[in-house]
């Protein structure tokens, strides 16, 4: 089965997503910012889904999407943005995100829906 890459500089956010996915036996990798994510993508050709935060030090979520869509192979990996503000959603879709999830108490359910859709 392919792996899921979770990119967030908040340990709290990362862990809560990872715990939630790992409990459903998904294989999850973590990255602490865009730069780290690029590194993980290069080393793991079996990443099938990327979930990324936007505001991160060193390399942001948008820059990460830019990298994946222009330089990564395959460049069509689904990338979902996880964001605090719902208004940024449409914006990130224009920049190449496959979709977005707004941080809320429903994040976990939303996340599982996205993962099931792409990892089935």
């Amino acid at each position, binding site marked *: 089965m392919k792996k899921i890459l979770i990119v967030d500089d*908040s340990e*709290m956010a990362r862990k*809560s997503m990872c715990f939630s996915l790992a409990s459903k036996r998904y294989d999850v990798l973590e990255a602490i910012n865009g730069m780290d994510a690029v590194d993980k993508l290069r080393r793991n050709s079996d990443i099938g889904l990327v979930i990324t935060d936007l505001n991160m030090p060193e390399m942001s979520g948008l820059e990460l999407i830019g990298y994946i869509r222009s330089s990564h192979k395959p460049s069509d990996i689904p990338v979902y943005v996880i964001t605090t503000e719902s208004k940024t959603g449409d914006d990130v879709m224009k920049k190449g995100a496959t979709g977005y999830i707004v941080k809320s108490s429903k994040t976990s359910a939303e996340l599982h829906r996205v993962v099931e859709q792409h990892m089935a």
Partner: protein
Amino acid sequence: MKTYEGDPDILALFMNTARAQLTKVNNALLAVEKQGVKAETLKLIRGEVHTLKGDSRMIGLDSISGAAHAVEDLVTALEKAAKSERGKLVKRIFALLDAVEAAIERLPGEVMDIDPEAVTADRAGEKGTAAGTGGSTGKGKPEAAAAPGEERERTETPAGRDDKTEIINLNVKRIEDLIQKSSAFPQYFNKFSYIYGQLEKLRNDMEADPRPAEDAKQLASIVSQFSHELSFYDLGSRQFQSEITKLKLVPLATVFDQFPRLVRDVAEHTGKSVAFTVKGKDAELDKTIVERLKTVLIHLLRNAVDHGIEDPADREKAGKPKEGRVVLQASNRGDMVEVEIGDDGAGLDLDRIREKAIERGILAREDAAALGADDTLALIFASGFSTKEVGSFSGRGVGLDVVAQTVKELNGQVSVKSTRGRGTTFTVSFPLISSFIPITVFLLGERLFGIPSAYIKSVLRVRESDRRDVADRPVITVDGEDIALIDLNAWLGLGEELTDANKNIVIVSSRDEISACVVRDIIYEKKMIIRKTEWLVRTCPVVMGAVLSGRERAIPILNVPEIFNKLKETTRGVVRKKARAPGAKDFRQKNILLVEDSAVSRTRQRDILEGQHFNVFEAAHGKDALALLEKQSFDVVITDIEMPVMNGPELIRRIRETEGLERLPVIVMSSYSDNLESLKDSGISTFVDKTTFSVKRLLEALAIEGIIESGAGPRRRS
């Protein structure tokens, strides 16, 4: 009241992260207050607050994320605001941060609502930001506004805090060191196994052809080799243990970083001007002590600013700089950590202390004149002593006596040095590692005693009908089992009779002994440090030490194993062997013969079986086993198949041929499952596959053989 229902591990992570974020933001805001608005500082604040907002929203704590959002807005306003407006905005942000902190500390018992408008409006016009934290205390009367520090203290230690998951951030280097050190242990196992093999070989050689002088020489060489390895093992295991204990240490920065804000608030509240310096926050201390040390330091810092440092005008008059200095400094010294809180204020007034002590009845007037400076200073820690009138800022509520008490409970020491006109320095020192253990405190007659809770099996109410005498000794019947009653009154020489006042029974057990003590009431259970009190232990050997509770009150802790020892000496067998748990009824005292040539497998199986309270005898092959079977009766034999000298099938054949052993249960444990067929007729009953070996499987096999079932009589040779 709404409670938090989410995953406790995630919540613990959130709380830990959020506390660190709040500390960082608080300190960044202090920098804004002192040095003005800098892009760098605002960026740091925004980053932390934004993460807090996302994190809290993620786990459904919308009130906190709402407050964080309000902080973000205020930071934006702060950036654009005119210089004159900044102070007000910073205070509003402080107020919001306090509200968030209070809300976090109430989790998971209460999910507090925060109304950012109310929180910020409340304070904007007030002096200082020291009023009660928003939300829950919104209705507080203005004059009842909590002093800085007090509010924090309260929110830091709400009831039930002990139940929350505690998280420590670990230094990866430290873990790597431990892994590195732990790798030595398998090596020791190999070395010991090698020596064991040599010993076995020697024994076999000796059996075949004894040559005393030569054998003795060989044995001596093995023994010396063993002793050499053992000393290294001892050293290695001690180091390992000490390193593992150190994992509990956290840097003091986690607490110290919260103090600049506290000192600022107190200074503002009392109209002092203070420069605060923190040194040595890398020093480390036990996580469980750090939290309690914090309350101590809050008291001392508040005192330093409020009582120590003089008003700016007075300082100028005395020829000192207007701004007072308060220094907090920590250092590790061997097994201790030492924390100093120093100020360059007025210093303590010895005459005033003596006067106050006399007034409070702590010191007799005739002794006062002869009292030296150090002894006089020590008086300020006495119970009920406070140099300022009630109602003044730091003098309120609790004082230095509480500081002294807390420090004592932590096995630490506190001292003070002071020079009139030059300042005061308090020094607090603690052992690095605490050893809190749960103690159950009970009332016996009119006195309090404690027992480490680990020894307590259960607590019951006594009915008169349960109590009777067997062979002139009192017993009580619990679940059909007679348990000897210990008359603690007599043991402790209290000279009180077991009266009707003593209605509760504490069942204590240690190793395989069980007994019951009659007590009046259980008062509480609390984690405490047992202090070894030499004189007490000498006068009364069944006491292992004492715990300090409340105001200087020492509660003796009973030494349960010692009580059992003494009982055995005097009553010869009246203390019963411990009752067996129902399912484990016949586990005890069963003799098992374990036949296995691999020392590694044998050790592992033996450990498991001994863990189940079997008596395990070991043999390396069939011949060994037969020799043991002649000397000793067994309830079951567990044997391997492939072995040197005499293999499993041969052993089983010989057992079946021996009179009295025809029906002895034999369990075969081997990875050679294909050999099973040849064993079919040999009379083995149960087979355990070694490759899928598990404790459960082994116990199942024993149950099939009737070894661990109640009532199934062991088949012994008669």
